[in-house]
């Protein structure tokens, strides 16, 4: 499978994503510069974490206007798989490919630590290998990861099965204490209505090897790979 990992000025997790896709999972992955106008022959696009354009103005606010995001939007509209991680999630929200917004953590502080995630419906390209309710241990690292949307949007997300990952405790219970940033409904990640675009704040690429103390994150990439290969 061919992955394209976007590279904006200020992307930090671009190489980490390429490392996991290529060296850990054995697929092809290349960096795609923000000035490019096409995603080329990519089967899927990863919008990685970092501080694109220094987070100036507002996280993701400038990246959405880059050349490459126009190409990614077109790719997504045609049903292409797109996953945004951390800053990538913020960019996808800014670009309107995903509903809602990520605002400042309730604690006002940047937070870096492992959290527990409860996986939502398994009928998406990002969760198909993880039965609903699977609990994953994956780290977060963000200052603006509090998911926010109006009540109607939230209702729609729930009804359509678009909430793919929620912060939970070790047993999978979704509760306030397990929420590291104040996200509404403990939302860690969602997908769009067509279920081909997803975004999440936690970093699956940092939890894809045992030496980094968790390989739970691999299941997200492996789901995308399985979905694509079955297609």
């Amino acid at each position: 499978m061919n992955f394209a990992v976007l590279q904006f000025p200020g992307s930090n997790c671009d190489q980490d994503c390429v490392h996991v896709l290529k060296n850990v999972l054995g697929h092809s992955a290349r960096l795609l510069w923000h000035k490019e106008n096409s995603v080329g022959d990519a089967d899927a696009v990863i919008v990685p974490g970092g501080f694109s354009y220094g987070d100036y103005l507002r996280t993701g606010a400038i990246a959405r206007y880059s050349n490459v995001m126009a190409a990614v939007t077109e790719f997504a509209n045609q049903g292409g798989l797109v996953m945004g991680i951390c800053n990538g999630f913020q960019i996808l929200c800014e670009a309107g490919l995903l509903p809602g917004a990520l605002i400042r953590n309730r604690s006002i502080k940047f937070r870096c630590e492992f959290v527990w995630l409860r996986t939502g419906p398994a009928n998406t390209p990002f969760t198909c290998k993880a039965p609903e309710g699977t609990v994953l241990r994956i780290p977060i690292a963000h200052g603006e990861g509090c998911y926010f949307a109006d009540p109607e949007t939230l209702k729609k997300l729930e009804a359509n099965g678009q909430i793919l990952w929620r912060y939970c405790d070790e047993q999978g219970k979704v509760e306030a204490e397990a929420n590291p940033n104040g996200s509404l409904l403990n939302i860690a990640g969602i997908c769009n209505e067509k279920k081909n675009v997803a975004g999440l704040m936690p970093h699956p690429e940092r939890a894809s090897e045992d030496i980094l103390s968790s390989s739970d994150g691999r299941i997200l990439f492996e789901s995308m790979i399985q979905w694509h290969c079955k297609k």
Partner: protein
Amino acid sequence: MNEPVITPELVAKHGITPEEYENILKILGRVPTYTELGIFSVMWSEHCSYKNTKPLLKTFPTRSDRIMVGAGEENAGIIDIGDNLAIAFKMESHNHPSAVEPFQGAATGVGGIIRDIFTMGARPICAMNSLRFGELQSPEVRRLFRGVVGGIAHYGNCFGIPTIAGEVCFDASYEGNPLVNAFCLGVLRHEQIARGAAKGIGNPVFYVGPATGRDGLAGAAFASQDLTEASAEQQRGAVQVGDPFMEKLVMEACLELLAAKDAVAGIQDMGAAGLTCSTCETAARAGTGIEIELSKVPQRATGMTPYEIMLSESQERMLIIVNKGHEAEVQRIFDKWDLPWSEIGVVTDTGRMVVRNHGEVVADIPAAKIANDSPVYHRESKEPEYLNDVRAFQISSVQDTTTATQDLEALLAVPTIASKNWVYRQYDHQVRDGSVVCPGSDAAVVRIKADSLPMLSEGQSETVPAGTEKYIAMAVDGNGTYVYLDPYEGSKTVVAECARNLACTGAIPLGSTDNLNFGNPHHPELFYQLKESVRGLAEACDVFGAPVTGGNVSLYNQNPHGAIDPTPTIAIVGLVEKKEHITTQWFKDEGDVIILLGEAVDEGDPNLGLGGSAYLQNRKGIKNGTPPRCDLKKEKAVQDATLDCIRAGWVKSAHDCSEGGLAVTLAECCFTKNVALNTPRFTGAQVDLSALKCARKDALLFGETQSRIIVSVSPANADKILAKAKEHSVPAAVIGKVTGSGKDSELSIRLAQETLSWNVSAIYGTWWNAIGSVMDAAAH
């Protein structure tokens, strides 16, 4: 142009002594221009010239077979780690700027040290820091602490470097003068080492990075004088403002340019003393001259004078000497990254640093003279009076404890000992996918893999064997109290503890970098501290095979109440040879045997390890007494024994005994494993110290006798450890076993007189929340 007339007052205002001024007149053969005076003042400040410490620094061990670039040669030292790989690392202080503006002061400290590393051609892969503040009860201290941590997080997180380890201490002596020492480590292939030399007569000199503004004017000179309220207020404008996003782009562009074949002749960052330091140092290193035209320097403010442009410390700027004919490469790469660049000058054969402004010469100085011929002072030293009191102190004047249970609970809540999660959870410590041991164990371990490295030249084939992975361990330590109470012995201990942290992780030291944070060197008693401390550091670094590859000196750390505790901090970097050797500090499995390596209590120490201890300071309110002795031979033996056992595969956990003594160490072994948010893992431990001879309970539980390590092993391997220890002539004793995990885990310690016990979950809560509860409860 109307420049101020050079008067004795103006010279004095620049911190230049009359003798130094005489020397300047001799070098120039005339009265300096205003710009030249400014140049001399920053280049001959302590921060840039080490004029007060050079003779001392020469005593550090600086060589080993692995050292490729040694101390003082370049912006950072470089060490060979095998398989054609090398690491570059260094630590530097940003104390004064952080005192004045904690957020930006600390942030630019991180930015500066990162630049030192990629200037060497290395890709920065991790950062650490060593921080010291006054007591947390003070709102002002909390403001500084919050600001410094926020600044480090801001810069490191945005730049995309994991802040993987560090230390934070709180002591009244740092009130108003916090210490912020930032460390960075990078990796590169042997052939990728870049040099800060202006080589090649006729080569163009490029300025890259953001425009120059008035910020940070003469920061180096500011850092080289006593910090007073007036100086702080007046210097608020001397603090630079950092932009980590810009630095990330500048780094990527520089590494790309360095990979362009034969394009770069020399490269140097503009740190302290900005354009001044980078031009004359690169010329001095190459034995050439350099000529620049200031009107070509990108400028952010209008009407900047030559003096201001030369002395500005605007951040994220680099000076690059490009091999003639490769100018287009600079343009191509810096345009790709949308970064400003400008050709500002040329390398000459005159040996002079010539600065023009719109053609008019505003400075013309022999480059080597200013860079290398700075004054050297042998300062007067006198043993401080207070040491008589220290030596007179007898532990017998303090009653043994009758409240040992509460003592441990209280010590775990002391901010210096308590968990630093409030700090490190604000730092991204995992970006770059290399953080194998994260903050919370004795030393951090980072993995080096192929994509950690700077890019190769186009068409160049890989020079590192396929599949190579390396594990680098690092820790940073300091103990101002010990060094205050005994500058020589205390400094040895600082190095010993840092090396011990590495040994516990399974690493062999490769080298070290130090930061000497001291008071005013003109004060003989303070200079004594510095001199004795360096003697101790040098001796210890030599014993542990950790030659000094570079570092930084920060003097004039005083506030209106006096000098800070003399605080050398040291970071040691080591190599873990195999993945399997990586060891953490927390107990692993029920039934494992707990072994103490080293003497339980140093009976030869009249204070039994309690002098200057955290226990004495926090439970008895006494900051006195000769601190624990550090016998380097014994210490080395304990570390070697531990490493042998780890490498034999017998050790499940290893934790060094330091502040708070054996009791704190055992508690930490029971509860420092943390799986995720709100998911700590506990074990219990049943420890029996009743067979150990010691007249005092407090000495046994909380004494800080050196050269001790607690390991846990499966029962089958216990005898092997004892035998190995014997081989190294290291005392070793089985002192207990690891018991059940879970919420009800109990730590019990049996003494000859009584048995103490604690609920592990409860003391964990105390330890974990101690700093956060103060910081988050207090209003900003």
